[in-house]
């Protein structure tokens, strides 16, 4: 039996330590990982917990991230609660197996620390890896600070393992800005956290030798479409479960999460849509803009996949202009978040003026002042009743002005 870890009511943890404690409290059976900056400390801390007797489980050291996710798939198919962590290039190497995990409906939890993708090499935070895994069939949840990284990792187990869902889940936190930033975190005590997550229920475990099963069967054109449609439906219909888990979590922690988060959006004329730590920085910009008389609000999809398009459109129905901020190089089109929001609005026949901003690539600093500038530009569009600013702008980029229309 694992030892109980003494936790203070308030701890000062960075995002990595917060995620590692959540994995520890979930009493994961198997963690297979290949550490990579900036998520290394998650794996390192977890291994330390295990060595110190705080975890009853297996830690498998593997030779690459592809092997890490493969071992996770094997262990989850065998019937265990499984988790891992990665970032950036490691995430990229896992991608092939991410699709296998979701197709086999294995509720693996992966704590992702978002980092830019090379080349050029960069260890700092942006959402390139999150966007890379967008269509892999996983649930992607976004955490904006260490407290959320902890809370949402606990929720991730319960969401993914729910019988109505049974899908793998990532929790995402910004590299360094959250992962290496120590803040006050109020953890649950071990028993309370484990009680919230619950015992793992294996489904079709391969280690049940009396009832052998084949995982990863070949399907071809007679079957593949039906299976993929079935899997997509599970993802699309996971919203009520996610909400249910968020509600349950509020009961034990007092902290409430929503599938779509908003800030001062109710009376807003303009809105900014963004995800990650910059959402919190933007709150301060909104407060300042409101002092200037600009009625601005914020919206963040807490869950990037499945994308809550109906709720996003509903919450944005009264705004006149929207700026969607993407923290990933869009490489040949408008940013993914812009596209998602534009699609959501179009589906409801809404026609707010939309612009796109690219920010924070490779950890580039994005300050309150930068976001305030975006708010002021968006305000111009709302006032003019048409788009008078660039379709796509770049925040805090050195050099001559770059924009696309």
């Amino acid at each position, binding site marked *: 039996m694992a030892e109980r870890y003494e936790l203070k009511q*308030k701890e*000062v943890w*960075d995002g990595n330590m917060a995620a590692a404690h959540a994995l520890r409290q979930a009493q994961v059976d198997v963690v297979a990982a290949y550490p990579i*900056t900036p998520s290394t400390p998650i794996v390192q801390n977890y291994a330390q917990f295990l060595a110190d007797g705080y975890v009853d489980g297996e830690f498998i050291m593997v030779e690459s991230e592809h092997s890490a996710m493969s071992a996770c798939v094997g262990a989850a198919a065998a019937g265990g609660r499984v988790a891992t962590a990665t970032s950036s290039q490691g995430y990229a190497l896992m991608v092939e197996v991410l699709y296998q995990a979701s197709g086999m409906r294995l509720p693996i939890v992966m704590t992702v620390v978002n980092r830019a993708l090379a080349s050029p*090499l960069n*260890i700092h935070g942006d959402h390139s890896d999150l966007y890379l895994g967008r269509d892999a069939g996983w649930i992607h949840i976004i955490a*904006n*600070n260490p407290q959320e990284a902890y809370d949402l990792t606990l929720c991730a187990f319960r969401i993914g393992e729910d019988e109505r869902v049974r899908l793998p889940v990532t929790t995402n936190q*910004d590299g*360094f*800005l*959250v992962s*290496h*930033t*120590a*803040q*006050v975190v109020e953890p649950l005590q071990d028993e309370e956290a484990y009680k919230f997550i619950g015992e793992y229920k294996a489904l079709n475990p391969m280690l049940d030798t009396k009832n052998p099963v084949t995982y990863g069967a070949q399907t071809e054109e007679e079957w593949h479409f039906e299976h993929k449609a079935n899997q997509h439906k599970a993802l699309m219909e996971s919203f009520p479960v996610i909400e249910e888990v968020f509600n349950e979590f509020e009961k034990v922690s007092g902290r409430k999460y929503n599938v779509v988060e908003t800030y001062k959006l109710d009376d807003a004329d303009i809105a900014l849509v963004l995800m990650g*730590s*910059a959402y*919190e*920085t933007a*709150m*301060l910009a909104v407060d300042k803009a409101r002092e200037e008389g600009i009625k601005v609000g914020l919206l963040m999809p807490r869950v990037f996949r499945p994308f809550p398009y109906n709720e996003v459109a509903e919450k944005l129905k009264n705004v006149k202009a929207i700026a969607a901020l993407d923290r990933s190089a869009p490489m040949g089109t408008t940013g993914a978040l812009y596209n998602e929001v534009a699609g959501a609005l179009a589906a409801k026949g809404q026609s707010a003026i939309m612009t796109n901003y690219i920010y924070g690539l490779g950890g580039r*600093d*994005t*300050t*309150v002042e*930068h976001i305030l500038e975006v708010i002021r530009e968006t305000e111009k569009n709302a006032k003019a009743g048409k788009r008078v600013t660039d379709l796509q702008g770049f925040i805090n980029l050195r050099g001559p002005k770059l924009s696309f229309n």
Partner: protein
Amino acid sequence: MLQIRWHSRAGQGAVTGAKALADVMARTGKYVQAYSVYGAEKRGAPMTAYDKIDDKPILDHSKWMTPDYVLVIDPSLVFQEEIVDNTTDDTIFIVTSHMDKEDLLSVAKHLQGKKVYVVDAIKISQEEIGRAIPNTPMLGAFMKVSGIIPFEDFLVSIEDILSKFPKKIIEGNLRAIKRAYEEVK
């Protein structure tokens, strides 16, 4: 919000120092943020670490700040002009040097007209801890200059934070902290 910027070399313990200060302040009920800015470079490269301390949750995740305090724990970095970046006339500098304040300011001209305190955190850590790890003595000096919390309370918290280390190390650090508290001027 109180904002503190550390200037250090990778490996001197500024990240640990910044996190320890955040931990100490969190125990008094404050909200804190401690982070650092560094690349994937080698030990010895100049880097910065940051503390933000406030009465309400800290939402700003940008790295930029106008520091109230600048703590320089490496004696050679005192001579880099970057240490005055984004500071105001009210910013207080606590720097590590074997020189006294007058001699130092005559060489480090960028610090002239600034509020500067000097402590030889390198010598103190070498003598009391046995290694040139100037982070904890700097905390002692900061406690004296800022008076942010009672020194006795600080000592209780920091002893608990250091409790994972061997007794000899803890005692050395506490001696170094107390000496820096006395010697900073």
